[in-house]
């Protein structure tokens, strides 16, 4: 079994580059050059240096003793929330901005949902003195306001998107359309989605997470393998990153937490593994939520970063071959898990990450097992949702 793309850019049945001819030349340039560029010694040196000095890597692996005690197992948190800009997204944007530089690009386009990728892109654009245009759904701009202000302060132009549900899917459409209209630009995609070779590029840059994890697990436990790794999944970049170096090792259980919104079958959900069928979205053949006519279903999740009607083709493949187990987490379960982590360990996680944390309450682990959760981001951007949740909880409640 292989976990890389084949010659045509597919992970098993999924992937490929389903793009209009207008993007063909651009994708070809990327496809033919990215490996050569990113594997070069100089590139790696600069990338690693920036990860270390600028992004603050390696991120710690933290043994969460109180969580462990509560859940009667051993919980480790991979602290991507401690990265510069507050999430794993910077691992990818540093890599891609260096790639864009090598390709002599100066205008950078990005889409963003939670705003974390937008902030991480605006950040590296400021660093490299490049023009940055970020597309963001209007719904997301409202619910992730702090990140909108951060992007603007960093010098990015944030373009509101009004189509569809005005969320990540729609922002991605607009970013790709911008690229069609401005082929000289570089499209800095934020997750392991989009046409080949993007999923592979992003997974490659995020794989630093599991590269570090192996070393840190060995140091902390004497064994580089945990028993289980849990990550939340929007497009799937933080999950791809923390799964990457463990994919071939079947002894390590891999779990992806997707957003069930108000309930998988409530009509307000983003649980792609349950509701999705193979189809084409954003240039890739993958699992997508759609109606029987092949129209894309508008997804829903309280978490802007998981509010997407698909998953990257690598994850569709991993789901298909049953290498990764998918668990659906509702808004409420995520909110509770976020508050629980905050009170137990003094860490306020991002709403996206909270979905991964909620899995602890859904799976029974043994006392001996070692479970790693990818703490993909911090919750500063989600304070408004948390404040609302806490306030509502204080209202008198009927006890069960």
């Amino acid at each position, binding site marked *: 079994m292989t976990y890389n793309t084949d010659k045509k850019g597919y992970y098993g049945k999924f992937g490929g580059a*389903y793009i209009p*001819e*207008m993007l063909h030349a651009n994708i070809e340039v990327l496809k033919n050059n990215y490996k050569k560029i990113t594997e070069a010694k100089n590139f790696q040196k600069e990338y690693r240096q920036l990860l270390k000095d600028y992004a603050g890597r390696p991120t710690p692996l933290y043994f969460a003793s109180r969580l462990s005690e509560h859940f009667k197992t051993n919980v480790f948190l991979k602290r991507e929330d401690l990265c510069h800009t507050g999430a794993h997204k910077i691992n990818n944007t540093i890599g891609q901005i260096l790639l864009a530089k090598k390709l002599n690009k100066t205008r950078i386009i990005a889409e963003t949902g939670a705003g974390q990728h937008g902030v991480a892109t605006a950040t590296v654009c400021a660093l490299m003195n490049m023009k940055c245009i970020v597309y963001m759904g209007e719904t997301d701009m409202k619910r992730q306001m702090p990140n909108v202000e951060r992007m603007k302060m960093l010098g990015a132009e944030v373009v509101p998107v009004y189509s569809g549900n005005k969320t990540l899917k729609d922002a991605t459409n607009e970013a790709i*359309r911008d690229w069609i209209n401005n082929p000289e630009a570089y499209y800095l995609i934020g997750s392991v989605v989009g046409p080949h070779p993007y999923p592979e590029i992003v997974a490659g840059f995020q794989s630093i997470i599991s590269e570090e994890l192996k070393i840190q697990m060995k140091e902390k436990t004497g064994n580089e393998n945990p028993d289980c790794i849990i990550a939340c999944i929007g497009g799937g970049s933080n999950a791809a990153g923390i799964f990457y170096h463990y994919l071939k090792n079947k002894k390590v259980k891999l779990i992806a937490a997707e957003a069930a919104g108000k309930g998988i079958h409530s009509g307000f959900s983003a649980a792609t593994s349950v509701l999705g069928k193979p189809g084409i979205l954003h240039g890739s053949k993958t699992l997508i939520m759609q109606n029987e006519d*092949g*129209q894309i279903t508008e997804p829903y999740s309280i978490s802007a970063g998981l509010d997407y009607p698909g998953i990257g083709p690598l994850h569709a493949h991993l789901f298909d071959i049953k290498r990764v187990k998918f668990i659906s987490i509702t808004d409420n379960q995520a909110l509770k898990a976020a508050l629980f982590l905050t009170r137990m360990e003094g860490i306020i996680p991002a709403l996206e990450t909270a979905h991964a944390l909620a899995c602890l309450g859904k799976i029974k682990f043994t006392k001996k097992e070692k479970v790693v959760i990818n703490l993909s981001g911090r919750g500063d951007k989600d304070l408004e949702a948390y404040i609302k949740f806490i306030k509502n909880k204080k209202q008198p409640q009927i006890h069960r």
Partner: protein
Amino acid sequence: MNRIDKLFKSKREGILNIYFTAGFPRLNQTAEIIKYLAEAGVDMIEIGIPFSDSLADGPTIQQSNEKALANGMNLKIIFEQLKNIRQSIDIPLILMGSLNPIMQFGINEFCKKCKETGIDGVIIPDLPFSEYIEDYKKTFDKYGIYNIFLITPQTSGDRIKKTDTASKGFIYMVSSSSTTGIKSKIEKSQEEYFKRINRMNLKNPKLIGFGISDNKSFLKACQYANGVVIGSAFIKALSSSKANLKTTINNFVNEIKRTNCCIV
């Protein structure tokens, strides 16, 4: 003979191909719009299959897609509405749309329905050349449906030659790198590209699309190709006209084809 071939056999210049989105502005006007376009003297018609997330489309066609979907349009209804179209219409009819709705309908079923209905060709912008050749061509050929390929200013010479070899019907020459309806005229740099393509002496006829919006851009494009495709400008006319459908369509087509234009 495929009606597209028949058309290009009898007419080599000034071909006018009009695109509209099926289901826009109203659900049940597809056959009517086709009839009025044919009566107005249009040479070929592209019937758009609406899609919620079409990447190659600008705001105008996105909005017509959205409206059509809200009206309840889908491929099944399109084929139903076109069931008897060949009793009265003889010009080439082409279906255009994104891959996903077609894929969910089923490629074989889609091509079979196209043949039964009398559809001559299909344009699927996000179906890449290589995927078509490997996975789809056999089915298209079986039912005699032409798949029309796009070329753009960024398409390399080699790829254009490959496209020309694999093409049937005509080549869709996208006038500039853009989504639909963004540009409304032809600029000097685009003429250089048209000339470059003409020097290649391709075996297939060529239609220029994207950025053709009026009589002036129509005549200009016709200097470099066998004709044009107009989409967004027609959708706009449908949206804004206060006249009835027949008059709106007549006026639009007459204005485009007006020959006594001042400066070309």
